[in-house]
């Protein structure tokens, strides 16, 4: 008796339907990953230009003068162009890389496989969410080429700078509106995506796949979807209100009596803090959306290469849920000094510090998993282990920012930049790398080159510490962030440290070429991958590499074990989830 959905779509025949407008979750997942790859290269190049300018502000960037004649005449960046690059860097990385790759990318490919389904619950809506995401990306990029450039208000787009229109500066005309439209579209796409993840996890699990037996990555994707459902539902109306303030003359965020560029602005009564509240109510859960899939991926990968079960699997799940819940109570910690009631600061700092507890438990569970293990050091394993190290580093700096008293000094400095880059720019990226090395064989039917992978790991691991650890020191010295140049007297002694960071950043960026090369070469010429090269347990490894169109060849698996069965004695030290009893 079959339990899967009757195949709503047999394998389509035309090239377009198979590879472009496909409703197959595996194709959609790869499309998201490809989009994220383009986005991360774009975002990284932007950061190289920014860092180069910070280290050597008067030196022209070769070739940039031709690409951006207004923003970088003669190859030297104007202050407004620096801020525009910074805004686009942040927006692209947070939305189109960190929300897209680990969640929409890997999640789309593997969630149906993990639960034993043939596809997502709503395949056509799934396809639509990808194309809306791609469209949103193109709308965002168009800001580079339309009007007087991209907005300069940061990825956080605080009002009234972002709301008053072009009086506020270059890029604040049509560029900012394009930004808001792009993000609103992205929200819609994410909501549709979350819809699919949740419905699939709840309704399409194969026989024997109870919630308790779900793989850790799927739990993470499921919980992330729930977080996203609420968070993106708040950001979207906020963007709509912002657009209305910009083009329709409303005053949701703009108070009366503003004089900008010598012009009295025709708005009245709005509240700039309202934007901040709405944005951060989305923004803080968003950073957990960015990292939770990484938690799931690391918890999925470590047991495979440790050859022993994850320590405390139920505790892990409870901690994920606790983090998700608490993530909605802490948004004000981005606003301690914003002008909101100071009493709120103390109120918000409490759950902010409490959220450290489940995060610490999870890190300790990972470390405890290594106890008594038999570690196999593949590239995937190294990135998973590296994740633990960098997440600990990034998480601990949060301690300083979570307390209002120390935040008085450190807010708005490079200490904050160090913190969020460690947890997002490094840890979340390591999660993506680990997932790539781990799942590449399954996705493409070929093995990646392990030697290149290891070089990629070592140079990146050392490189990221060289880039971001010094930023803590800059912050302690009071170096303010979002500055396009360091002209203040007290910043002059810090410029050598900035140059060190720039060199490290350019070096680490160049190292990623190894990864890119490995990806392409392995796709074309990698050794053929078996079904289960890592001897893992979850359902994707019980089907071919890559899986057939309907995932399990018309035979939905029957699950008899959880995902954590490692470490047995005897020749085979693991039990697969769909192992016959």
């Amino acid at each position, binding site marked *: 008796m079959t339990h899967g959905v009757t195949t709503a779509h047999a394998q389509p025949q035309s090239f377009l339907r198979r590879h472009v407008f496909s409703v197959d979750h595996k194709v959609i997942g790869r499309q998201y990953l490809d989009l994220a790859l383009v986005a991360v290269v774009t975002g990284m190049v932007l950061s190289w230009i920014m860092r180069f300018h910070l280290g050597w502000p008067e030196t022209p960037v070769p070739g940039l003068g031709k690409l951006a004649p207004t923003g970088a005449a003669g190859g030297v960046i104007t202050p407004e162009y620096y801020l525009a690059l910074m805004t686009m860097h942040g927006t692209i990385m947070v939305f189109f890389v960190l929300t897209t790759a680990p969640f929409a990318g890997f999640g789309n490919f593997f969630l149906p496989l993990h639960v034993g389904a043939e596809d997502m619950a709503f395949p056509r809506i799934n396809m639509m969410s990808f194309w809306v995401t791609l469209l949103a990306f193109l709308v965002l990029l168009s800001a580079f080429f339309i009007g007087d450039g991209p907005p300069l208000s940061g990825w956080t787009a605080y009002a009234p700078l972002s709301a008053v229109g072009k009086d506020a500066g270059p890029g604040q005309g049509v560029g900012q509106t394009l930004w808001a439209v792009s993000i609103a579209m992205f929200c819609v796409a994410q909501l549709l995506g979350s819809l699919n993840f949740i419905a699939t996890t709840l309704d399409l699990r194969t026989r024997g796949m109870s919630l308790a037996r779900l793989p850790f990555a799927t739990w993470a994707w499921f919980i992330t979807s729930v977080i996203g459902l609420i968070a993106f539902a708040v950001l979207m109306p906020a963007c709509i209100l912002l657009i209305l303030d910009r083009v329709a003359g409303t005053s949701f965020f703009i*108070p009366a009596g503003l004089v900008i560029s010598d012009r009295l602005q025709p708005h009245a009564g709005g509240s700039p803090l309202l934007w901040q509240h709405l944005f951060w109510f989305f923004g803080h859960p968003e950073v957990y959306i960015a990292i939770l899939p990484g938690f799931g991926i690391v918890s999925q990968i470590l047991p495979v290469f440790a050859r022993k079960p994850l320590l405390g699997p139920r505790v892990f799940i409870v901690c994920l849920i606790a983090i998700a819940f608490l993530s909605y109570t802490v948004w004000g910690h981005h606003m301690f000094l914003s002008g909101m009631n100071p009493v709120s600061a103390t109120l918000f700092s409490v759950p902010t510090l409490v959220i450290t507890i489940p995060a610490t438990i999870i890190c300790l569970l990972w470390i405890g998993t290594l106890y008594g293990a*038999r570690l196999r050091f593949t590239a995937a394993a190294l990135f998973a282990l590296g994740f633990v190290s960098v997440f600990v*580093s990034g998480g601990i700096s949060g301690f300083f920012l979570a307390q209002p008293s120390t935040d008085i000094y450190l807010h708005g400095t490079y200490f904050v930049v160090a913190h969020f880059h460690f947890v997002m720019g490094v840890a979340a990226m390591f999660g993506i790398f680990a997932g790539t090395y781990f799942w590449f064989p399954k996705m493409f039917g070929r093995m990646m080159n392990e030697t290149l992978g290891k070089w990629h790991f070592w140079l990146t691991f050392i490189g990221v510490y060289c880039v971001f650890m010094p930023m803590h020191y800059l912050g302690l010295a009071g170096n303010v962030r979002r500055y396009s140049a360091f002209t203040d007297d007290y910043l002059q002694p810090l410029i050598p440290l900035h140059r060190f960071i720039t060199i490290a950043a350019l070096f680490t960026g160049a190292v990623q070429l190894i990864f890119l090369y490995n990806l392409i070469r392995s796709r074309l010429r990698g050794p053929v991958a078996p079904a289960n090269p890592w001897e893992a347990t979850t359902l994707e490894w019980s089907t071919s590499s890559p899986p057939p169109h309907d995932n399990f060849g018309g035979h939905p698996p029957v699950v008899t074990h959880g995902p954590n069965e490692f470490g047995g004695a005897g020749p085979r030290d693991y039990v697969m989830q769909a192992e016959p009893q």
Partner: protein
Amino acid sequence: MGKLFAVVVTLIALASATIFALHIWWVPPDISTHGSRIDRQLNETMVVAGVLFVGAQLALAFFVWRFGASATARPIKSFPGGPTPMVVLATVLVGAEILVLTLVGSKVWADVYQTPPAPGALQIEMQAEQFAFYFRYAGADGRFGAMHPELMNDASENFFGLDLANDTTARDDIVVGSLVIPVNQPIVLRMHSKDVNHSFYVPELRIQQDIVPGLVIPLHFTATTPGKYELVCTQLCGLGHYNMRAFVEVKTRSDFDQWLKEKAAAL
């Protein structure tokens, strides 16, 4: 490979922690009355953070070193006590630290932002705009003239939008581009923004506060050491954000009085 990982992680952890501990790059000397409490909070947090950071990285390094795959198939061992020690460690150790830090820190915070200014504080007003700070003193009548946005004009240097023609309280207001204050004098700074969000940050004073257009935000502090300190904007306000700077000049009482008298006479 495992041993290499352990060595690299250990070196990184120890090197980073050492640089923190040696204060190679550190906060500048504190010149405020409340700053020592913030510095103590910072130092205590640094110690806790340092212990946790080094401890976690070393534990990770040690386990990776010790438990690499070996030729003889060692039996797999589970962490003694299972997940319970982790939960207890995190909740008790981290939780206890959190409790202490929060309780002490909330008092430090309240001292700065939730207490009223000392009686007899000197009132100064500040106007933040793209991309400069301006300050005004009440003048002989001790009253500030009303601010009119429609009269604000940078070219004629009417930064506060004063109605000099009709408003007598405005005529003796002293408007300058530096925050000049006497040492050991409580100051109340009422902060306005003309256009977008800005922020007031003086690292040596251990004080920072966003300035929100549409709101008047008061800030109070007392400087303890004469000198000239940079005041910078920390809230992204547009292309000139990096250059938006003023100076806080802390003068001796007599120097300040002299300066104020000269300024009033020059009106």
